[in-house]
């Protein structure tokens, strides 16, 4: 019984040694493809501007061989482990790969799906045409003056102050309203009353009475009108997402172990 175990043990060691021997033989072969040589020579030509001589070619190949030998010896010593530059480089390479594989143009279906999911980014916002009477906060009683002007139903222009950007605004969006009158001013345009003097409302500059004569509700444009834009945007999103999606896909196979008691 004891002998049998010993014999199996010896056989096992022999198989192991033969395996090492065979594999290491394989590893010591350096194959240099024609393509590699040609691309190196081409690179040399583009740098130097002429064909390399035979001597130079053998030097190029020798350099390649030496690099390969050093590379393999380094690998066998495990020098690639914990090298941040190598890690980063490999991570970069796979990122590029993932991004490039997505360069194909998206299909109609994908685009309409994309539009459905991101509709709000393409919303054409409400726009307003209005006149306003401005009562500058630089002048006293601006709020009272604004109120008076509404009360009398007699809107004589002379009582209001001229506004820097003018009195009439045509087809301007809520964003533009905020940009011209100060943040939050667009709030007064929610549920607008049309063709009626309303106010007074406070902006960064004073009080305003508004007469909104036209209101175009916001709408989602027809997909065909913005098809090109959607295509460009989707491709951009695909590029951005490629890597994070890939990480998401494979990260379930990994578990992360970290010392919870580490003091920093």
């Amino acid at each position, binding site marked *: 019984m004891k002998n049998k175990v010993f014999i199996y043990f010896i056989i096992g060691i022999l198989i192991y040694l033969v395996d090492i021997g065979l594999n290491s033989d394989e590893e010591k072969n350096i194959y240099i493809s024609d393509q590699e040589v040609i691309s190196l020579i081409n690179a040399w030509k583009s740098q130097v501007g002429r064909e390399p001589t035979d001597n130079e070619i053998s030097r190029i190949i020798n350099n390649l061989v030496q690099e390969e030998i050093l590379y393999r010896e380094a690998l066998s010593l495990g020098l690639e482990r914990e090298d941040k530059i190598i890690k*980063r480089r490999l991570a970069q390479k796979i990122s590029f790969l993932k991004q490039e594989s997505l360069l194909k143009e998206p299909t109609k279906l994908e685009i309409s799906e994309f539009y459905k999911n991101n509709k709000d980014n393409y919303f054409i916002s409400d726009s307003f045409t209005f006149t306003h009477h401005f009562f500058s906060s*630089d002048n006293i009683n601006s709020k009272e003056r604004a109120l008076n002007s509404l009360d009398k139903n007699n809107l004589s222009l002379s009582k209001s102050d001229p506004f820097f950007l003018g009195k009439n605004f045509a087809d301007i969006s809520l964003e533009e309203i*905020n940009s011209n009158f100060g943040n939050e001013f667009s709030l007064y345009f929610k549920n607008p009353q049309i063709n009626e003097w309303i106010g007074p409302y406070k902006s960064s500059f004073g009080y305003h009475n508004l007469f909104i004569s036209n209101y175009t509700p916001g709408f989602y444009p027809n997909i065909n009108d913005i098809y090109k834009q959607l295509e460009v945007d989707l491709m951009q999103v695909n590029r951005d997402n490629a890597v994070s999606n890939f990480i998401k896909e494979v990260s379930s196979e990994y578990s992360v172990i970290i010392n919870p008691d580490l003091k920093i």
Partner: protein
Amino acid sequence: MNVKSKKIIYLLLILPVMYVGLLIIMDFDVNQKRPILNIFKSLQSDSALEVVDFSVENTNLNTDLPKPNKDKNPYYGDLHVHTKYSFDAYVFGITATPDDAYRYAKGEGIKHPLGYEMKLREPLDFYSVTDHGFYMGMIQAFSDTTTDISKNDFAKPFHNLNRKENLTVESAGERSDLFSSIIGAVIAEPFPNWHPRIIKAWLTKNTQQALKSFDYDIHKSAWSDIARSANEHNDPGKFTTFIGYEFTTSTDIEGGNLHRNVIFNSSEASIRPWTRIDSLNPEDLWTWQDAMRDKGVDTVSIPHNSNGSNGQMFEMESFLGRAIDQNYSDKRMRNEPLVEITQVKGTSETHPLLSPDDNWADFEIMDARVGSRPPTYSRPSGGYVREAYLNGLTLEFTQQGNPYKFGLIGSSDTHTGAGAFDESNYWSKVGLLDGDAENRGSVPLAPENRERLEEYMAAFNQPQSTIALEQGDYANTGFTQWGASGLAVAWAEENTRDSIFKAFKRKETFATTGSRIAVRFFGGFNLSSIDLNSESLVSEAYKKGVTMGADLISDGEKSPEFIVWAQKDKNGASLQRVQIIKGWMDTTSGRPSEKVFDVACSDGLKVDPITHRCPDNGARVNISDCSISQNIGSTELKTLWKDPEFKSSDKSFYYVRVLENPTCRWSTWDAIKRGFKPREDLHDTIQERAWSSPIWYIPSPSDVVVVPLGGTLPIRTSN
């Protein structure tokens, strides 16, 4: 020997002779600086004059544009933005692309290299990515180890420079060294004289081809990506972009900064940027711009950081030391209608030594030459805008033309893709080098950081890099003289490339220090007939007068009248006062002079008629929390002003300066947010401001020099 082999031998003999002949011709042309026979010149083609249409298929929704406003709207933008394609931005750790930059301008948040988000309070109306033309895209290629060019020795230090774990403040020293090695042109080594690439460079007038560290394909692809991005983000009616780049030149020995940004008017541009490798002389840039204009592509070039030019941006002589003449002046004005008066690296309006009587002259002064190592004082005279206007009048007085009749804009010069315009939310501009308060010098350095900084800065040729103050040792590497500035504003009919570019060309622009102040400025001889409180003020003023950037031609002895109307930033501090700065050439003494007039005061206060100053309005800043006085200051200031010292025979210029109430400077915000007091050797507060382009008063109609603008504007005739 048969005839055939003889022929071959002849051919073999002739080829080297031709080669050597070509080398000799080139040597004469390049090194001996002798003109060669024109017949050989015709062998050359000009690669920089090849026009490419970079336009992309129109991706924008075809909604109707709003009607153009004939009274014009103020559009706010930035014409000076660097991304990863700039040789230095990449070294500073920037990985933002032109696409990122345009997204930022439209209001999206993007990441600073140190990881925090950069976002605008309010989107901008126009933006131009202007990466350095020379070595554009190259450093990125050096860093990317898959490119052929990265395999060279000179590229090794750049390998994987911006890998994620290297995006730290600790890498600042390595980065600074690389920056100076590029500035020192260590990597700009040419091929030997016999080399075919040299001949190629000469034949295509493309000097950069002669450099070992240069790859033309990479360069062109970086440029076309910048142009593509600009065209893709251009959205007529909503957001305007311009193809642009920076022509980063300087004087040879003193290193005086002569940088200019080149802005294109359409989707077409040259196949490559015309750079300092083509020539250091700005006159050659203008020659190239003229030639491009002949091909239908219009450009403006905009000088910046004249404050760091060692007095050489606005000299009284040309780059080559020749006298300025009418031709030089015309050429400069045809190509450089605007100057960037303010940006992160200081403000170039005027200097206390140049304008000792101007109480507001000591404003965001940066006193070193741009990029100098060790930091070296920049001579003020010749580097500031107001003095340039005065010198322009002097040159005109001596019949040399006026090369300094430019309008004004501001911009940021950010290298992160994202301009920092807000004092309370500031990240300066060079990424990892100044992205945190300690390195900017606004809070004391932690001991270990102090040691590191000193070590790095010593290697970076700056022996003295810290300063001991009350609260500890601070970084003192020059960043404290930088600031949260500025914006370019154009008065245009609509937000389109064409409309805004035309505003640049007619100089109907103003500059701000990042605040969204707005200012109208008109001059004429009958403006007092307009009711200042009338709704039609602006349209009447356009009819009866001229606006900023224009000439006002005399009407006999009549004294000109000016209308100024300024509005505060809706999110900023209230206005304190409006000033008109006048410069004139006294024809009897032949001396130029300047004077600052307050013309409108806040809170209904009156200008003192003797001193021309507004009384103090009482607005103060609480330095412990940066709060400001409420209900002091005006939301808008408007006035009609007549020059009380007018002399009809004196050529003059008038420009507006609008001042806000004081607010905290970024360095104060930095300090109090981190529990420190502001540094005692810096200004605690700042008065944000705006400057209009001037109106020039021309005494005699025959004196008007009409500079042809190259077709985009009708030429005004002098009656």
